[in-house]
């Protein structure tokens, strides 16, 4: 160990002892190497969903290969995906009941944490995936795209998200991040006939790679500072030694935040979001706006709450700053958009700001609030993008505000659902959006972050203007068409997805007890 000639003091409990004088037996050591290679412990239940989902993806890839000879297999991919998701869901439920009964545990050498928190987020990922598959059916048919590849990639990306939700090691987080991202890069560029789609793909890719490099650099620094990438290990280390003004850890922390900030589209790392959301095929946008955020926030929360819990004073101001910037920029930029997808992209940035409030609070309440927010957000945002999906025309066009003019006449039911979901985004009571906002505000108020709350509520008003503007177009502006011209067909999958989203949004808005209970119980290993 080379201290590089710089004196370092490490606080050990109360007193300060120079590093060199720390008795060896006080340095916790575990896992003495042995001659035989021991088989790592494995609790399959913990990683069941990931394994099932990625296996399903492989099955689909196989089906695609076979479909050269038997083209009918092509249509099976959807159902295979659904079955895979269902199985994953069942496993997830089983794991939940295990965890709730016997408690959380780690597996695979501590790389995977199986706790309520992970399972909650996995559930959300599965939901987003399921809905992403549902709304894509009509879309893929309309746009004449390769459904099988789409399903495979969605499932692979979902597998990455699932891994991320229960990742308990920075390197696993990184890899999972890459899994979900790389699949999404491809999905963003999935629409062959749209230049925008490919542009979105390359932009997402370049910036994604750029930010993962930064993230990884952060991992390296944290590794250097703590000697491990395991969140549990980091936490143990940090609770044993109080690091004072440790640059290495701080640099790592800052760089990790950049990586997470990029994934959750926190300002100023958000700039890819509108372009990619607009350019990507709409079902992909729906899927990634929900799934990526859930997974990234899950990892972020776990890192901050389990790994760097002791460094609260260091990261709180950073997250605070990010939250404020994200809230303000997201909503202010949203109000000047004329493309609906883009507008919703900015609004999703603003939503990320709200979740960051929960993150920032850093309390149990805060975590529960962030979870509740993500839960509500998943249904709302997927629902909204579902509407956007079905209203577009061949070539994934028709996302301009003016294309929504007279929608309430043309398609009253869709318009009403859109209105409802938009009100939910605005946080009007009796929608899940209100409950979610209430939860994060509660966390922040409990944390006595009044300034943040005030910023947030005012931003909510600004953001409300965005939704109101869309409603003005759909409902209030006169249209000269007779009402039915330009009606689009809403296929069964999208209908089901919309119904689910609206139902959950309403149900949580009216009776949020169940959600809040679960969010409360979805706590960490620690």
């Amino acid at each position, binding site marked *: 160990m080379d201290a590089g000639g710089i004196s370092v003091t490490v606080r050990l409990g109360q007193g300060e002892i120079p590093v060199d004088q720390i008795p060896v037996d006080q340095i916790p050591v575990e896992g003495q190497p042995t001659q035989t290679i021991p088989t790592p412990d494995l609790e399959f239940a913990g*990683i069941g969903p990931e394994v099932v989902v990625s296996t399903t993806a492989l099955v689909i890839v196989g089906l695609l290969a076979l*479909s050269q000879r038997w083209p009918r297999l092509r249509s099976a991919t959807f159902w295979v995906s659904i079955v895979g998701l269902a199985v994953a869901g069942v496993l997830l439920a089983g794991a939940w009941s295990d965890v709730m009964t016997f408690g959380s545990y780690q597996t*695979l050498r501590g*790389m995977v944490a199986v706790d309520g928190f992970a399972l909650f987020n996995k559930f959300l990922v599965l939901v987003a995936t399921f809905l992403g598959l549902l709304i894509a059916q009509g879309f893929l048919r309309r746009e004449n795209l390769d459904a099988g590849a789409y399903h495979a990639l969605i499932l692979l990306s979902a597998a990455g998200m699932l891994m991320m939700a229960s990742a308990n090691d920075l390197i696993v987080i990184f890899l999972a991040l*890459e899994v979900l991202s790389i*699949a999404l890069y491809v999905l963003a*560029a999935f629409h062959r006939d749209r230049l925008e789609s490919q542009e979105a793909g390359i932009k997402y890719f370049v910036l994604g790679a750029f930010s993962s490099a930064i993230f990884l650099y952060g991992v390296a620094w944290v590794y250097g500072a*703590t000697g491990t990438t395991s969140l549990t290990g980091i936490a143990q280390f940090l609770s044993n030694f109080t690091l004072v003004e440790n640059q290495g850890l701080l640099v790592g922390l800052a760089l990790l935040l950049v990586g997470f900030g990029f994934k959750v589209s926190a300002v100023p790392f958000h700039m890819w979001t509108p372009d990619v959301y607009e350019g990507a095929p709409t079902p992909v946008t729906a899927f990634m706006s929900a799934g990526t955020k859930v997974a990234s926030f899950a990892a972020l929360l776990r890192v901050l709450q389990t790994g760097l819990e002791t460094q609260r004073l260091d990261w709180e101001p950073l997250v605070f700053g990010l939250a404020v910037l994200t809230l303000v920029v997201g909503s202010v930029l949203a109000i000047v958009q004329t493309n609906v997808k883009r507008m919703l992209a900015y609004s999703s940035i603003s939503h990320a700001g709200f979740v960051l409030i929960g993150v920032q609070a850093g309390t149990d309440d805060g975590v529960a609030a962030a979870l509740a927010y993500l839960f509500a957000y998943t249904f709302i945002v997927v629902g909204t993008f579902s509407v956007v999906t079905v209203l577009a025309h061949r070539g994934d066009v028709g996302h301009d505000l003016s294309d929504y003019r007279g929608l309430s006449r043309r398609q009253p039911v869709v318009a009403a659902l859109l209105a409802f979901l938009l009100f939910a985004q605005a946080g009007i009571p009796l929608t899940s959006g209100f409950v979610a906002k209430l939860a994060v505000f509660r966390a922040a108020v409990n944390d006595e972050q009044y300034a943040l709350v005030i910023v947030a509520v005012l931003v909510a008003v600004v953001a409300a203007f965005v939704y109101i503007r869309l409603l003005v177009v759909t409902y209030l502006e006169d249209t000269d068409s007779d009402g039915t011209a330009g009606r689009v067909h809403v296929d069964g999958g999208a209908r089901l997805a919309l119904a689910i989203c609206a139902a959950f949004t309403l149900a949580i808005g009216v009776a949020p007890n169940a959600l809040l209970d679960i969010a409360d119980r979805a706590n960490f290993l620690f």
Partner: protein
Amino acid sequence: MMTWIVFTVAAVAAVLSAIGVVVSRNPVHAALNLVGTLFSVAVLFVLQEAHFLAAVQVIVYAGAVVVLFLFVIMLLGVDRDEMLDDPLPFQRPIALVAGGVALFGLSVLIQGTVATGGLSARGPALSGDEGGNVERVAKSLFTDFIWPFEITSVLLVIAVVGAIVLVRDGRRDDADSSEPESAS
């Protein structure tokens, strides 16, 4: 002393070729500069007892990745020089300033950094009685890091599927046998 000399040479080479990557107007030159950096870094790996990695670095990076780059450059025929001026106003100065500031910050921070993680409960040691570097890496990989290792397999599947999906010639039915030999 010797290590210092080797280090200095390799470090300077790495940095210079890295700068070369950035400033080469021709992508082919950039790629070649990249190879230079990769080799230099491999040397630095060796200096730090990461023999296996040094080898992989050369084989995978220089051998595969850079070749792939060159292949694509040639395929697309983009091996022409970039314009000297930057069409985005102020992009160059602000980028350089940002880079400079970041570098300054990082170097200042590095001055006071100590791998305090040495106090940690860490994994198997770098060297010792139990075999060489490769063996140690392998052992670690298949015990402690089995899960990340599995994840990389998924990653490769995606890479393969994604690449095929993207570059296929727009036709639905030529999804060729992209059966990946996945590790899982």
